[in-house]
């Protein structure tokens, strides 16, 4: 086989592999991804499907114990969705902080969280407009 032909074949093989990878990526990512929701949207969506719920921990709602219970509200406030969570609680977790937790609403309207899915955002200096942390806790660069 002459070199030009060989090169063409290699090019075709490489391109096909790239296309295959791209298709696999696109297909599986849309399937594997969790939709992000705010608690108000979650209430509207109803029980069943698992979502990544982003919101703020409602003041006065944190109960420690065997499992962690707290309420999660939209960033701007509003009705709190009760959450039941089992697993690692990140260090920055506290009331008023923004968190992301993955789980599904059950029939009683409680968000049953997946284990270890709680992520708490490090408090940010640039969040003054939200009035999150009046004591300006500084974040890293």
């Amino acid at each position, binding site marked *: 086989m002459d070199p030009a032909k060989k090169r063409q074949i290699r090019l075709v093989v*490489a391109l096909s592999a790239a296309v295959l990878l791209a298709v696999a990526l696109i297909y*599986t990512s*849309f399937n594997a*991804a969790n*939709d992000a929701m705010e608690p108000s949207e979650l209430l509207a969506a109803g029980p069943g499907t698992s979502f990544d719920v982003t919101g703020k921990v409602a003041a006065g709602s944190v109960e420690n114990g065997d499992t962690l219970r707290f309420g999660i509200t939209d960033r701007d406030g509003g009705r709190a969705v009760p959450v039941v969570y089992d697993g690692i609680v*990140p*260090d920055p977790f506290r009331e008023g902080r923004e968190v992301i937790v993955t789980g599904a609403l059950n029939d009683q309207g409680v968000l049953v969280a997946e284990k270890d899915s709680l992520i708490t955002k490090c408090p940010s200096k640039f969040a003054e407009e939200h009035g999150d942390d009046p004591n*300006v806790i500084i974040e*890293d*660069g």
Partner: protein
Amino acid sequence: MSALGAAALAAALLTSIYTVVSALIGARTGDRRWVDSSRRAYYAVFGLLLVAVVALESAFLRSDFSLELVAGNSSTTTPTLYKATAMWGSQAGSLLLWAFVLSIAGSAVLYATRNRLRELAPWATAVMAGVATFFIGLMMAGTIFPSAETYPFAALAAAQVPLEGAGLNPLLRHPAMAIHPPMLYSGYVFFTVPFAFAIAALITRRVDASWIRSTRRFALIAWVFLSLGLALGARWSYSELGWGGYWAWDPVENAALLPWLTGTAFIHSIMVQERRGMLRVWNVSLIVVTFALSLLGTFLVRSGVLQSIHAFGESKVGPPLLVLIATVLIGSTLLIISRLDDLRSERRIDSLLSRESMFLLNNLLFIGLAVIVFWGTFFPLISEAFTGQESSLAAPWYNRYTTPVAIGLLFLAGVGPLVAWRRVDPAGLRRAFAVPLSVAAGAGVLLVAFADGLAEPFALALFVAGAFTLAAVGQELWRGTAARRALSGGSPLSAFTALITRNRRRYGGYIVHIGIALLLIGVAASSSFQTSRDLRLEPGDSGTVGDYSVTYVRPTSEIDPVEQKIAFGAIIDVRRDGEQVALLSPSREYFASSAADPSAPLRGFFEGEATSEVGRKEGAARDIWTAVQPDLSSFDPVIDRGDALFARLAKRVDPADEAAAGFIAAQQGQAIRSLADRYLNETPPAEIRFNVNPFVIWIWIGGIVAMLGALFALWPGAEARRRRVSDVYAAKLARELQRT
């Protein structure tokens, strides 16, 4: 002093603009005077930024709270190390750091090339100075738009200067976190140098390997810094955070990983261009992409565009950075397209079985990996654009796709050293691959037979590939030493030393491969074979995790008035087969919130930051890791009662009465101490997370080895003095070859 710094920064802006202009004049007219002037101007920018940095640092060290930056990021009680490193904890400070490191890197390369690369250097100066102007300009724009918070010397009005600053988030009071940002930024910045020279090469149509030869070292330096930054972040996460992991595929982590991936590909593919003159379009495109990703990394961390643990909120710096990235990409693409004819090389890859082919394959895999990581990182934006719904991908998706590619890359890291440039003859191939393949197969068999290898196929594949690579590089070192001895005699040790020091690039690279193999073996073992359990224990209780028995021996409690924290912890006894393996003391530290409600001082302690102090015992074969989370719900009534008492006291006391204030403070101290005692005597149960992580230490060891290998490759060798010889060319050639 700050006035000096501010003046220096303003002067730096004007000077860097002058640098761009004079460099362009010199480039267009060829007048060396303008070129020399632009080089001096670049050095001057370095000097001015140095003054600005020193001024700012001194403000931090003096706790000069008249500067907004110092008031917001430091405090009088912050330990000195963290005062000094707090500068880059803020947006304005990190912009200054970026510009400063860029001025260092640029000055270094301009000095090194001051008598060479006469056509390229002026254009490269203009590019680097242009980027510097952007960053300095962003900072100075903060004087006009104070809400952007980009001006490092922003001053507070005299009335607003606080007595005490906000202090540093306790999570960040860790040496690794102190230097993690400058390491990452240095990595990003040093990639600017090869980028600038690539642009210069394209503009001047001098697309041979000279731009690569001069900037290769800078790409390697960038790689070392980026690797160090990534490793420090992983190490900090593992040893400080209460989740015990080192990599979460968080968008900000990925942002730093992306230029590392393309940068590693670049370091390999430029070798092909140096040797064979091939891949010229590929290389210029790759460095453009790497530089753009470096800027993107800077942007991502500070823009709030993606949900991340490192949430910095919306920052005004985002849009200008995006504009710069777009300009870089579009401008470079147009430039490359316009020079395509000059870039095309006639040479082609001779054979699939050659080092060039392996490098090309390695590049494809790295790019594939970068695409996967990029896709996953930006997926929330992509999905929102296409479906209107923001969705995100988590670690399992990333692991599923990156692991096979990583396996392929690890295997290639062993193949590369085994094959020669241009062409390997089949018999030579057999000789080269026999031992490493056998070792790899042997390792695989052993793992399947004795360690349940088939349960975790990906981990098994990584181990086998790692074994192959280690064996392959080991064989190369062995046979290379033998060949050297055959050629020029000497003891094995001296032959080995001569071998690796005569060719630092090659053998430094081999050492890096060893490091990476160790690292990936550590990753495979610790992620696939981790044992983890949560136990809820009271003092005296025990639990079992795998082969280990875990006993909560007794509680600990400690008060630190300097750092204003209470630590509640536990002594954990870990045994295996009855023998003590480790005695760990994890704890949870509660820091007083500085804006605590004075009428609820006790609650204030538990409303501030809390960090986990991990209890860890490292070992060659496994790490034992615990974190404790006391359940303080039973303390709530006590705290509330105490706070109610203090609230009543505070009402009855005149705030100006110092003696009374002193008395109350003393009472508060007493109350805290009694809380601490209560923890010891009426200890509530605690959640104890217990992990056994096999081979984690090899991740750190592998990383260090890889970085040392890169430094070795970077290091200049002792060159024999080059003397001009005036005989017949062939004789000259022969003699010079023998001498080296």
